[in-house]
């Protein structure tokens, strides 16, 4: 009864510290507990300060191995390097760094896959052209 809020004070403009000891937030950061807006990454603390660590981002290691060993182009190794960075940075508490490495690992896996795909498709097209232009040469392999 007495601790009912007075009328007019129901606009919580200030973030109320709802938990015990929040970590020091950057000044322009969102209030604690709010979902990350504008594409901000949630782990915007310097590493090792117990900032909000999300779940470990994917390191895309399987994709990196696939493109390295099955695409015949060594760009997949770049992806494996970033995959290893995801693990080491996450374990060191650098969540933002781990997210960035995860993004790079994904990008390079796709780059490697794309280049391999372009190469294979180009090869097939070349074979098809040469087979249709002269049927006597270079297409009598063991099928």
């Amino acid at each position, binding site marked *: 009864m007495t601790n009912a809020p007075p009328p007019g004070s129901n606009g919580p403009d200030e973030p109320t510290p709802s938990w015990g000891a929040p970590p020091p937030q950057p000044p322009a950061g969102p209030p604690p507990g709010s979902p990350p807006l504008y594409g901000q990454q949630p782990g915007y603390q310097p590493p090792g300060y117990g900032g909000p660590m999300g779940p470990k981002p994917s390191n895309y290691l*399987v994709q990196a191995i*696939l493109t*390295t060993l099955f695409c015949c*182009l*060594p760009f997949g190794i770049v992806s494996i390097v970033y995959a290893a960075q995801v693990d080491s940075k996450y374990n060191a508490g650098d969540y933002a760094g781990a997210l960035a490495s995860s993004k790079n690992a994904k990008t390079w896996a796709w780059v490697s896959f794309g280049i391999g795909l372009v190469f294979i498709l180009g090869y097939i097209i070349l074979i098809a052209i040469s087979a249709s232009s002269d049927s006597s040469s270079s297409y009598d392999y063991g099928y």
Partner: protein
Amino acid sequence: MLTVEAERNERRARLAVVAVGVGALVAAGVYRIGDPNAGGFPACPLYSLTGWLCPGCGTQRGLHALAHLDLPGALAVNALMVLTLPVLAYAYLAWGSRVFASGAVPPLRLPARAVLVAVLCFTVVRNLPFGAAFAP
């Protein structure tokens, strides 16, 4: 709104699992029928340009050997690829179970740094004179 998007993502994930499985089967069929030792398959562009063996060199011959149940032959051309296949198969199982059966198979936890070291050592050694056992 959210559920529609989640549903679409789930449908995409299921499609991706099926597509990868079908792709693997098609690849197995291609290397069962065709023979990369006889030519007609794309050669590694890095090898064509530089003469260096990349970690994937010999993979097509290795897959051809495996498609004919010739494990020693596959190990002889690309041992790392052969050793990786069970790992990849498990990763595929875990992925499929996560998408279709909400995670009956626990996901793979591979030490990425160890993989990196293995791939780099394999690449260097197979290009050296004494590493002929690892070269195709």
